[in-house]
């Protein structure tokens, strides 16, 4: 027993000390401590890295660095501005009427039958090195006619001996648009895009028919025609859009419209490839600043600098604040600024936060529970880092997200739904009672702004300050926005027919049902909080917790009453928020995104006018009319616009939150020497517990040993 324990201890400490020098807890064994690399984490393993499929933020985090759509958002400028990425310039649509005649830009949207976008891409852009492009001396593709046995021994793309590259051409973009219609890919935007791109729906039907006719055979997309996307010449292609759809440009900045080389698809569709996870879904082929060098979604994803990258440089324009923050220090330098980026899988918060503090992650969001440790508020309410954090050289980055949380009322519900005045009052009363200022302070530690309507700050149509307040829930006290007192809510509730929470006629108590799929550590407290809020009105709330599928099912069938929901902007346009309230997009019946099933004809009419307009005073006026209607009808309790608080270490440079752009990794710079120093300083192992443990073991075993010896002697 002694010997085993001592041995284990020796081996343990010896190996530890031997293999990693000072920092015993370094989670990156075998990595050069001074490498010019970025270290971060991903919480959920990405499901799809195919740009036709990936949509969620954790997937775009990778695809955004690898794939290049024609457009991108300017890194520094606000409001968000689209600039060309692989395109020569941001395309301007040309409009045509039903007869095919060209129309002027000022033509009314009703008259426009088709908009045509012609996109010229820059010549000389080349793909990352990849075996799919590898050719032998006679120009034949090396890896396009493989048998399953040839693939058998290969675990990663790097196991293929030869690689090649080729120039990006317009056909690759058209190819990808066709892929959106591919039945096997079930692209999440196929339904939406087939309403806009000419002929996409028909292509989808044709592809489906072809699949049925020859099940199991890969489709050759080049053999199919898409009326709405054509190649003009090697570096120009044209997209035809039904009617007027100015938001289409925003889509052109998303990886959905990135190029895919046909070689890659041929390469990956060979026998034996899918069994080894060699698919476009897992092994991207792009032109971007990085390529995926190591792909193990169970542990680690490593992006490395693409040697063929086309020499984009760091932006030179930015305002004074950017300059002061040092964001222009690298202006004009060739991108990317780091050699690699290491993403580790980290599902639990505690390890994530601990590793950030130990210096093993470069940046971190702050969970509400680590907040007090990291951030405090100054006298005027500004968040600041605590001294402990500042001593470590950690910086705080805050930004209001372009998203919204709300509590929806099911407008089809017999108790709280409908547009009658008393129902409006009932919903307004509840809106006042749910004190989201308190919610933000308890659960978010101030990381949110109480919402005044559906449009978050940073999106056209949002009005700052007292001018933009929701008069049914808030009132102005000087320049401050103050929630109406609970007395107002009680009065509204009485007018709605429920004085003191009782039905005026029958005296029955008003019982409401709150549906949620909340689970996890925080859920119970949050649900308790909501109950407490309605308790103030003497309204009784029953929380119905359930799982994701059941919740979705209830929403779809319209069986819910109150529910919590959020929306994250796809692109910076008010249309992307108002369409959630557009009647014809109702969840019940049409399966759209309008989960509250709100349907106000007046609002619908205004929405149809507003959506195609260019930003300007006229659009603003219509938006304000719409806001007035929505605030009065109160189909949602506008809860809050979340704020993101991010922390970064001193050695990380060029960080400016950009909620639209997803390819910001190329701008990032780090100071590896500083990082290595800090890590060594912060992670000195504390040795006395080991000594103590050893002593305790000895103390435990010695009396036994002594007793044994005595026993032996007695026996002998």
């Amino acid at each position, binding site marked *: 027993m002694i010997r085993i324990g001592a041995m284990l201890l020796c081996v343990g400490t010896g190996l530890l000390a031997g293999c990693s020098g000072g920092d015993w807890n370094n989670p990156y064994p075998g990595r050069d401590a001074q490498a010019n690399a970025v270290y971060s984490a991903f919480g959920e393993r990405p499901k799809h890295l195919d740009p036709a499929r990936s949509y969620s933020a954790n997937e775009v985090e990778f695809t955004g660095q690898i794939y290049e759509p024609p457009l991108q958002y300017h890194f520094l400028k606000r409001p968000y501005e689209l600039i060309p990425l692989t395109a020569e310039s941001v395309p301007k649509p040309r409009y045509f009427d039903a007869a095919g005649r060209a129309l002027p830009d000022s033509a009314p949207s009703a008259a426009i039958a088709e908009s045509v976008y012609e996109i010229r891409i820059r010549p000389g852009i080349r793909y990352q090195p990849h075996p799919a492009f590898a050719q032998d001396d006679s120009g034949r593709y090396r890896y396009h006619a493989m048998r399953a046995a040839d693939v058998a021994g290969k675990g990663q793309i790097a196991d293929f001996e030869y690689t090649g590259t080729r120039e990006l051409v317009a056909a690759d973009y058209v190819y990808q648009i066709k892929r959106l219609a591919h039945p096997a890919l079930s692209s999440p935007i196929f339904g939406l895009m087939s309403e806009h791109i000419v002929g996409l729906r028909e292509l989808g039907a044709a592809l489906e028919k072809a699949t049925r006719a020859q099940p199991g055979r890969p489709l050759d997309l080049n053999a199919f025609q898409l009326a709405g996307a054509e190649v003009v010449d090697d570096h120009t292609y044209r997209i035809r859009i039904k009617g007027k759809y100015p938001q289409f440009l925003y889509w052109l900045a998303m990886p959905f419209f990135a190029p895919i080389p046909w070689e890659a698809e041929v390469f990956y569709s060979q026998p034996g490839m899918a069994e080894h996870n060699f698919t476009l879904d897992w092994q991207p082929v792009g032109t971007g600043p990085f390529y995926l060098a190591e792909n193990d979604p169970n542990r680690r994803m490593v992006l490395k600098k693409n040697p063929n990258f086309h020499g984009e440089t760091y932006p030179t324009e930015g305002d004074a604040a950017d300059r002061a923050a040092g964001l222009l220090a690298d202006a004009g330098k060739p991108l990317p600024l780091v050699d690699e980026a290491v993403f580790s899988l980290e599902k639990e918060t*505690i390890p994530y936060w601990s590793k950030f503090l130990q210096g093993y992650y470069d940046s971190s969001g702050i969970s*509400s529970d680590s907040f007090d*440790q990291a951030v405090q*508020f100054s006298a005027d309410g500004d968040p600041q880092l605590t001294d402990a954090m500042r001593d470590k050289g950690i910086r705080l980055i805050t930004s209001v997200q372009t998203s919204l949380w709300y509590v929806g009322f099911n407008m089809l519900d017999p108790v709280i739904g409908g547009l009658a005045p008393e129902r409006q009052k009932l919903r307004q009363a509840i809106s006042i009672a749910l004190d989201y200022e308190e919610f933000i302070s308890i659960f978010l530690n101030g990381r949110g702004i109480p919402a005044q309507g559906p449009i978050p700050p940073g999106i056209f149509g949002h009005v700052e300050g007292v001018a933009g307040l929701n008069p049914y829930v808030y009132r102005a006290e000087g320049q401050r926005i103050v929630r109406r007192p609970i007395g107002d809510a009680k009065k509204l509730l009485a007018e709605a027919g429920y004085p003191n929470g009782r039905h005026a006629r029958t005296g029955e*108590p008003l019982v409401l049902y709150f549906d949620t799929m*909340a689970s*996890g550590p925080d859920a119970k407290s949050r649900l308790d909080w909501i109950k407490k809020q309605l308790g103030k009105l003497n309204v*009784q709330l029953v929380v119905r*917790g359930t799982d994701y599928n*059941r919740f979705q099912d209830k929403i779809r069938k319209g069986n819910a009453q109150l529910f919590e929901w959020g929306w994250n902007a796809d692109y910076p346009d008010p249309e992307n928020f108002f369409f959630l309230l557009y009647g014809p997009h109702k969840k019940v019946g049409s399966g759209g995104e309008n989960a509250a099933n709100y349907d106000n004809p007046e609002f619908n009419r205004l929405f149809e006018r507003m959506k195609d307009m260019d930003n300007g005073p006229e659009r603003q006026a219509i938006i304000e009319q719409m806001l007035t209607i929505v605030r009065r009808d109160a189909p949602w309790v506008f809860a809050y616009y979340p704020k993101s608080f991010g922390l970064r270490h001193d050695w990380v440079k060029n960080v400016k939150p950009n909620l639209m752009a997803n390819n910001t990794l190329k701008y990032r710079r780090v100071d590896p020497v500083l990082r290595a120093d800090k890590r060594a300083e912060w992670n000195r192992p504390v040795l006395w517990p080991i000594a103590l443990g050893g002593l305790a073991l000895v103390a435990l075993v010695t009396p036994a040993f002594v007793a044994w010896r005595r026993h032996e002697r007695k026996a002998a």
Partner: protein
Amino acid sequence: MQPVILWTDALVFALVAAVAGLVLFIRRHEHLCAPWAGVAKRPMAMGAALVLAVFVVIGLLDSLHYRERLPDSPPDKPQYSVEVLSAFDALVGPLRTQQEKTYSAPLAMRLYAKEFVDHDGVAVREYPRLKYGGAHLESEADRRADLVRRVLLGGAQGLAIALLLLGALAAWQARCSRQSYGEWLVAFGTGGLGWPGRTVATTLALIAIMLAVVIQLASGYHVLGTDKVGQDVLYISLKSIRTGLVIGTLTTLVTLPLAIVLGIAAGYFRGWVDDVIQYVYTVLNSIPGVLLIAAAVLIVQVYIESNPELFDTAAARADIRLLALCIIMGVTSWTGLARLLRGESLKLRTLDYVEAARAFGVSHSRIIGRHIFPNVFHLVLIAIVLDFSGLVLAEAVLSYVGVGVDPGMYSWGNMINGARLELAREPVVWWQLGAAFAFMFTLVLAANLFADGVRDAFDPRVGGRR
């Protein structure tokens, strides 16, 4: 007030009735009494039993549910709140209702988080005073004295109660055994009672002192602090007792009939009955338990969603999920005991007197009831007490995986789950985790010690070889 009988309440009280019946039955049969007398001789087991008894009493009080009548409802047609309370809630009243805004440390007077407080129109960020915790004090300087006073007062009260109880016990016992009061006390003092009187008395005194001190402190402070929404952690921990007990006992209630019937049947009848039963339990054993439990929890959710009218209160919804959890855990855990009983029955059926009975044409049910079951009963009993603590611990793990009790239910598993985030705070919020740990540990330790006693007394193989 409208009494509410939840499913688990009904079953809990059915269980209590069954246990009472069993006790009466055992008391009437000398040979069944003997091993229990053996348990009663073990100090460790008796101390543990007392602690368990306290938990059980709290759990039972918490199983008497009712809905409060709304204060202004008309007398002819009374209306009730949707919130389901229990006798325990009524007993501890303010503990439940005195909610702070958010975290506060045990016995603290201020919140654990800084907030903007208006000082004469100037917003200052500081730790605000609690609404209830220590609200009776003028300044924080008085806190220490007040705490000491309360602890001493509580200790004295507890001691007094314990002495009173001991006196009453002595009087009663002395009369029973026709001794004088003093004689009994001497026997008590020297440990010559035939049962561990000193241990029982000490445990009793400790429990009484502890309770009295907690009651004294709880009337002015949050003894174990408050959680994220400001609820008293002591209250949450106490409410969790019922959940733990229900899972530990009702699951066994489900296990027993399955295990006894199928286990004995397989061993006694052999042949195809044995094959079928073995098949069933091999299949069930091959599937990871977590998976079956997750499936059962989801099935209940589907059932709730399709019959919302049956579950009109949050308590009813949480309760049915708890019941489902008990049932499925029972279904997955009967196999071990069944296999044991099968083996034992296989042996028993070859004994002479069983064979003789069969030869005389005695019916199978009679043979099983007369000869087989009584001879395997001790195995069943040992399994019950041994499983209990394992089940209480399992609840915590399941809640962590997300397939445990309803997230809105008070349970130690949910407390631990919530505490995961709290440990990442700095300074650490440790009291919720600590409270869950302490309560769970006490219950499980008591159960384990008691189980040890029962096993030693009942199992002829291990018993008496200490």
